[in-house]
């Protein structure tokens, strides 16, 4: 437990000093995205890495948060915090309702169903032009305010986003090391044994699906208020796959791994600008290579690989 606290404090310290070391708003902007992506990856990891249930539609929940906040604030002039809370509450309930039928499915069927769900959300964002602005997007979304403080520049947004991200990480780490986290991992390893131990697997899967959707929705609201402009392309199938890639790169069931995965997959496209639309191929390759050679993800896999090298070195020496 003390080690968990130490890890978290190191992360928080890093987050606090990074902006002082960086100059220019470009890098700060990238780090804002790292924060939002971390929230999403951690949310998906609770479902995918802990409960062992895939979702290929999480970009949809992210989009629901962004559009709900965007529409409520820019079109109806509702206070952003109220809009954000309302969006999170409604989407959580929606996910709970969808979760019951959908999480009865297993494996590929669940993947297909969540994929369909994501596509339905995407079509709504794209086609409900009167509400969402359609393909040309929704603009004029106001910034968040706290008292006299308006989150209108990159540094303030950085602080806001990372406050939420650190909160998500801390709460998720707590959850992962608790009775609920153990029950989730038990379902992952052997659902029938978990049920025999009294774990209500069906209800818990739905609860964690709803929690995961809730965090994704909040990330979506934050995204909308930070950017001021949203369009459907940010919430499509490609992004859902990117989220799964982040979780797998970092390691299933490793909260800090999701942070690493989100960091890499946010920095990578910036570095791979020259490849433009081919980035999805690179993600595919990464996914294949990771599952083949580092199935535990980077955070767990690298120490294991190092240990192997060390023991190999010893045998030769």
């Amino acid at each position: 437990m003390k080690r968990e606290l130490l890890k978290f404090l190191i992360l928080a310290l890093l987050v606090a000093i990074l902006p002082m070391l960086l100059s220019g708003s470009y890098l700060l902007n990238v780090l804002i995205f790292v924060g939002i992506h971390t929230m999403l990856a951690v949310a998906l990891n609770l479902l995918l890495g802990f409960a062992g249930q895939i979702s290929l539609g999480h970009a949809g929940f992210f989009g629901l948060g962004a559009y709900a906040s965007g529409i409520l604030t820019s079109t109806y002039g509702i206070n952003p915090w109220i809009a954000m809370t309302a969006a999170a509450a409604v989407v959580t309930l929606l996910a709970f309702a969808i979760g019951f039928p959908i999480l009865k499915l297993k494996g590929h069927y669940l993947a297909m169903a969540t994929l369909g769900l994501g596509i339905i959300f995407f079509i709504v964002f794209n086609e409900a032009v009167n509400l969402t602005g359609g393909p040309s997007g929704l603009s004029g979304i106001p910034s968040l305010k706290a008292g006299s403080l308006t989150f209108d520049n990159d540094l303030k947004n950085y602080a806001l986003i990372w406050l939420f991200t650190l909160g998500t990480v801390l709460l998720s780490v707590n959850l992962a090391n608790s009775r609920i986290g153990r029950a989730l991992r038990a379902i992952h390893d052997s659902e029938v044994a978990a049920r025999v131990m009294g774990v209500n697997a069906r209800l818990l899967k739905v609860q964690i699906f709803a929690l995961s959707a809730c965090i994704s929705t909040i990330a979506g609201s934050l995204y909308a208020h930070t950017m001021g402009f949203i369009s459907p392309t940010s919430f499509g199938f490609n992004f859902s796959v990117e989220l799964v890639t982040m979780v797998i790169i970092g390691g299933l069931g490793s909260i800090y791994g999701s942070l690493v995965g989100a960091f890499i997959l946010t920095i990578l496209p910036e570095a791979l600008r020259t490849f433009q639309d081919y980035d999805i191929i690179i993600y595919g390759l990464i996914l294949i290579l990771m599952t083949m050679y580092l199935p535990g993800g980077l955070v767990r896999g690298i120490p294991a690989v190092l240990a192997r090298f060390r023991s190999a070195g010893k045998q030769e020496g």
Partner: protein
Amino acid sequence: MLEIRSITQVFGGLTALLDVSFSLRQGEITGVIGPNGAGKTTLFNIISGIYRQTSGQIFLKDKNISGFPPERLARLGIVRTFQNIELFGQMSVLENVKVGLHTKSGCGIFSCSFKLPWHLAEERRITESARNWLDFCGISDLAEQRADSLPFGKGRLLEIARALAMEPQIMFMDEPAAGLNSRETQDLATLIRKIREAGITVVLVEHDMELVMDVCDRILVLNLGEKLAEGTPREIQENQAVIAAYLGEG
């Protein structure tokens, strides 16, 4: 205390169990034996809520529990172990037993995420209790190991420790001696008696006749899905129908 009333189970055209009835007495060790395909595991799967029987009822102290899912039975104190041990492989030995304490604790997603004071107190209680059960089964030295790294015999003990952590009223064990060597089987017999002394009613499906005759108070014999005989080990050993079923007639 547990009463099974004319259970029948049909899979497609195959009748796995036909009109099987028997009742368990509190504090006894009951053995369920029979040749392969007799329906022993099917019976276990029905009682533990994994299958839903075609017809018949199960009563726990006059309460009809037919068709209850496993998680509900767990709260009523019915637990089972599996023939091919079902451990939570990626978790530590201690964590496996902690899952067994799931019904003995109640913190939800909210209090776990925010580490509320009562969650911390509960977590301490869970850890202490889990260590006690590891101790009871003699595997406390393995607490921090990953469950999938255990040798088969230790894995079996872990599965028993995990089931005991629920403090069940009745424990069903599906072939607990399968895959164990003779030394481990002897230790198992001692452990089963110890479990009974802790006030738990034990039922075991087992092929190891020496173990069954040694520890069981009563034995139920199934053959081709039907109840063939019921009685004390001595009665069963002398029962002509049982001998015929095992050795073949003529």
